[in-house]
């Protein structure tokens, strides 16, 4: 592998990792703060992709679609939490698994009824459609770089939100101790609703952002879900930073796995997880595996 190729591969790893982070961040947020295991997260990602498809078809512009989608998703997430999740916190994880599993089936079927089972492409907005030369034998699509940039921005925004704002303070309080937060006069119900719709929004956003690259197809959520789980497991429950590191790590392992060890490319990331479990059961930045 020449140096140039190596760098391009690193670039590939980065931008794949960044996307993973964006999808997984919503998941780890909901995990860490609400202690809810949400199998439907992948489906949320799919919803995003299909939103991007139908909204761009409607409005003709991806960015209008993005804006619209963000608003929609926040509202929808808020309602979703209210209808399906609000009574799950006291229940044990089994019930949550069951509920979210049911959600997957419902969402998948609704998708097939409303939009159908065809594969769709989403057009890249004109001014991002180009590609720039990297090295001398390969072009790199601008839009992918744009997505990566967007991921970084969103990551920073998330960090700022959680570390620097009042909402973030409350969120962290709620995460560390529910009773304590309540005694501080935080409306935990509302907080959870907000956090959930935030997580939902992140999933949908990532789905929409990546739709032009990933194409839109049935069952696209399931794959994503499992990789997201890996991100969370490796990163450590509820640790956004951990998720970030883990996502990039997986990005690299996956990309170079495909290049250097084709036979095992499929299992490379799982082996990574196994190793992490061996040395750090709580994940890279997780304090404890208990939750």
């Amino acid at each position, binding site marked *: 592998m020449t140096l140039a190729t190596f760098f391009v591969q690193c670039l590939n790893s980065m931008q794949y990792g960044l996307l993973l982070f964006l999808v997984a961040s919503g998941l780890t947020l909901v995990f860490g703060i609400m202690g809810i295991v949400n199998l439907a997260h992948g489906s949320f990602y799919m919803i995003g992709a299909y939103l991007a498809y139908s909204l761009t078809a409607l409005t003709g512009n991806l960015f209008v679609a993005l804006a619209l989608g963000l608003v929609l998703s926040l509202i929808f997430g808020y309602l979703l939490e209210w209808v399906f999740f609000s009574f799950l916190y006291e229940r044990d994880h089994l019930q949550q*698994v069951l*509920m979210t599993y049911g959600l997957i089936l*419902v969402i998948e079927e609704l998708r097939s009824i409303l939009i159908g089972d065809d594969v769709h492409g989403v057009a890249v907005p004109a001014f991002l459609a180009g590609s720039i030369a990297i090295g001398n034998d390969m072009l790199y699509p601008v839009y992918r770089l744009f997505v990566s940039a967007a991921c970084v921005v969103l990551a920073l925004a998330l960090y700022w939100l959680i570390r620097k704002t009042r909402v973030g303070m409350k969120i962290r309080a709620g995460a560390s101790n529910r009773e304590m937060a309540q005694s501080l006069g935080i409306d935990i119900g509302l907080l959870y609703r907000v956090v959930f719709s935030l997580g939902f929004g992140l999933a949908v956003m990532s789905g929409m952002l990546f739709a032009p690259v990933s194409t839109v197809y049935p069952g696209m959520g399931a794959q994503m879900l499992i990789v997201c789980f890996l991100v969370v497991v490796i990163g450590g429950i509820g640790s956004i930073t951990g998720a970030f590191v883990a996502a990039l790590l997986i990005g690299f392992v996956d990309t170079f796995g495909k290049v250097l060890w084709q036979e095992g490319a499929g299992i490379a990331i799982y082996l990574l997880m196994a190793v992490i479990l061996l040395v750090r059961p709580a994940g890279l930045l997780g304090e404890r*595996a208990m939750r």
Partner: protein
Amino acid sequence: MTFFTRRRAWSASSWTLFLLALAAAPAMLDGGFELELLSKVMIMSIFAASLQLLVGCTGLVSLGHAAFFGVGAYATALVVPQAGAANLVATLAFAGGVSMLFAVVIGLLVLRTRGIYFIMVTLAFAQMLYYVVHDGKGFGGSDGTYLYFKPVVGMFGKTWVDLADGRAFYWAVLAVLVFTLGVLRVVMRSRFGHALAGIRHNEQRMTASGYPVFLYKLASFAIGGALAGIAGSLYAFQYGFVNPELFSWHQSGNVLLMVILGGPGFGGAIAGALVFVLLSDWLSELTKHWQLIFGLLIIVSVAMLPLGLTGGVAACHATIERLCARRRGVPAKTVPKEERAL
């Protein structure tokens, strides 16, 4: 006290009735398909019961249990002779052993985690095995591979029963189901089993009392894995076809569904398996969007029956009893706490 003895007597008799009904089923069912469906129900019951040992008895919510089902199936597919029938008992033992081995190795890793974490990690390991058989050499690849002959029951090369006949196979499966339930019952009434219950209710206390909790969990995981492997082996024999999809996380999800919907106890697991298989069978005939209905059913049942089917039944039973009791002016019996706690 009388309550418990009465309950035990009641459950014992109902178990016997249930098993007898299963044994008699071939006489009533003519079509080969119904019989196949019923043996599938029993195979899934074994599978679900093996998961119940983890979820219901030890408090380990595994979302990767299909891994061991698949291992059992593939172990069988790879070990049976290409020409000629395999010995059922030997093959089952082998499949169970291999699955147990996998369960121990995987358990050593996944049992280092808890709760949500455990759920995700088990899922990931199942997925890993999916890729191993899907991409690995000598597993028949993505299209799967065949078993050409149904097994026989016999010893020293002598054939006693040839299971090529649908009914014979059905009864063989029933026998294995009974065996499984027997094993699980023995395990659960042993000190080991009680310790598992203790771990489920209060791991901290068990550690404080001096139990090597990790070992106990690992043992439970291994037994569960072995039984799941046996179920997988039976599945492979019944359909003569194995495919990587056996490892897919939908399988894991479905069996967990059976367990949770069914409710506490191995009876719950079986009830869950029965309802799941028949319901999905029936719904899928009804409409091509059956999964929508199914999903909604799941959601509703979570909202309505936190104790699962048997729990729901028990609850109704209790309410009725209470009402009758009130009419009679006798203090009502409530469902004992054991049943509440899953």
